[in-house]
């Protein structure tokens, strides 16, 4: 399964990467008057298998180890390169993407392509090996960049120094919007995941936020606001609305007590479990309401330090954990 996205990424890269990023520079060149035996030394010393041929700065041909072997076989080792080189030369442009080079390698069955700039000047050479190396490097960079961004997200609270650091996510929740229901809590959960919160904390916050969000959708006149305040040691969810308000909070807290109309119950909502679910998932919960004015629900979930083998613990999470008081 994990193979699939990687192949896609390489396919993307050969379209994205310009040839100039993977080509070899500087270019070793020979003149048409260089002899094949001199060429042999140039190839041997530089450990390369071919070179472009330049005449007064102009690319006139390309000569490879294969041409050299043929020259050796026919006893032409002292012949000038001009007589044994391939011309005209197939080139690629530095600004083109790697895929153009891949096509030309396949089409012309050559092992090496001179790279020219937009004015036709030779600026580099390209082999299949250069492309492989360039792709590997680019994938490595991608991987590295992803690692860095992940690291940054996970350490955001350690890197930002203040007396109290917090991230506030604020969502407007519309009344009776069952279709969009749960999307704010999904986003809160995703943020927690990104920040590296332990899975248990993510689950508790997701459930509490979902129930609070659904309460705003099901029970309010004009919707309300859902706010998640994420701090290193504690996550606070606050749901507020402007009515209708809860007449009897104690009764509302009873599992199974529901005021939802039938049509809402038929959708599977209004089980009367919302507030008790929230209570179960939270370390502290405060519900204030006034009929005709509105309701404010505050939910606190503490981020307990992970017991063993965790990154957080080895990197200073313990200090924060020790300061925590049990509710």
């Amino acid at each position, binding site marked *: 399964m994990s193979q699939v996205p990687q192949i896609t990424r390489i396919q993307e890269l050969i379209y994205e990467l310009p040839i100039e990023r993977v080509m070899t520079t500087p270019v070793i060149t020979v003149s048409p008057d260089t002899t094949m035996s001199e060429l042999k030394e140039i190839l041997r010393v530089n450990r390369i298998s071919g070179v472009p041929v330049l005449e007064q700065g102009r690319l006139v041909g390309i000569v490879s180890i294969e041409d050299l072997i043929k020259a050796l076989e026919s006893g032409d080792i002292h012949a000038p390169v001009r007589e044994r080189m391939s011309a005209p030369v197939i080139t690629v442009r530095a600004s083109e993407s790697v895929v153009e080079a891949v096509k030309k390698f396949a089409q012309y069955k050559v092992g090496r392509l001179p790279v020219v700039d937009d004015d036709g000047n030779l600026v580099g050479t390209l082999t299949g090996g250069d492309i492989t190396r360039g792709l590997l490097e680019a994938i490595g960079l991608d991987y590295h960049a992803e690692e860095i961004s992940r690291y940054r997200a996970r350490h955001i609270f350690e890197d930002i120094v203040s007396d109290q650091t917090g991230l506030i996510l604020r969502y407007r929740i519309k009344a009776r919007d069952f279709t969009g229901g749960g999307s704010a809590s999904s986003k809160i959960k995703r943020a927690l995941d990104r920040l590296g919160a332990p899975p248990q904390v993510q689950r508790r916050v997701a*459930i509490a936020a979902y129930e609070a969000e659904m309460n705003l959708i099901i029970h309010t006149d004009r919707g309300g606001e859902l706010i998640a305040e994420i701090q290193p040691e504690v996550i606070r969810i606050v749901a507020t609305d402007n009515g209708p308000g809860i007449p009897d909070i104690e009764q509302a807290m009873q599992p199974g007590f529901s005021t939802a109309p039938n049509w809402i119950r038929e959708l599977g909502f209004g089980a009367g479990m919302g507030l008790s679910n929230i209570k179960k998932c939270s370390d502290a919960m405060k519900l204030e309401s006034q009929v005709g004015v509105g309701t404010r629900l505050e939910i606190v979930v503490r981020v307990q330090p992970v017991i063993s083998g965790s990154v957080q613990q080895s990197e200073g999470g313990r200090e924060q954990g020790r300061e925590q008081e049990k509710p």
Partner: protein
Amino acid sequence: MITLGQIAQELNLEVATGAENLERRVVAGYASDLLSCAMNRAKKGYVWVTLQSHSNVVAVASLLDLAAVIITEGNRPDEETVARAQSEGVCLLLTPKTTFTVVGELAALGVRGEPEQG
């Protein structure tokens, strides 16, 4: 542990979304038509059996990271729900059977109400 693909095949379920998840292992099962109850009791990797087919089912499944939702009694999610399930990677399986029948068949395949120990 049994996979979603095996369950879909054995129970003859229609794969509405999440065909790419069929290799996923099913940890346990839960059945209810009340979303808050599912929210409370179903957990990551569970399969949830319900006759509800609206888009909040997807929200619950996504929040809990459920393996799949089996929607019973021939209820079909609307286009919007299917689109949301697709974008959140939630697997929806459909059947004309009742919840009772589906749960019975799941149990016969070894799916329990709680994850197996060990």
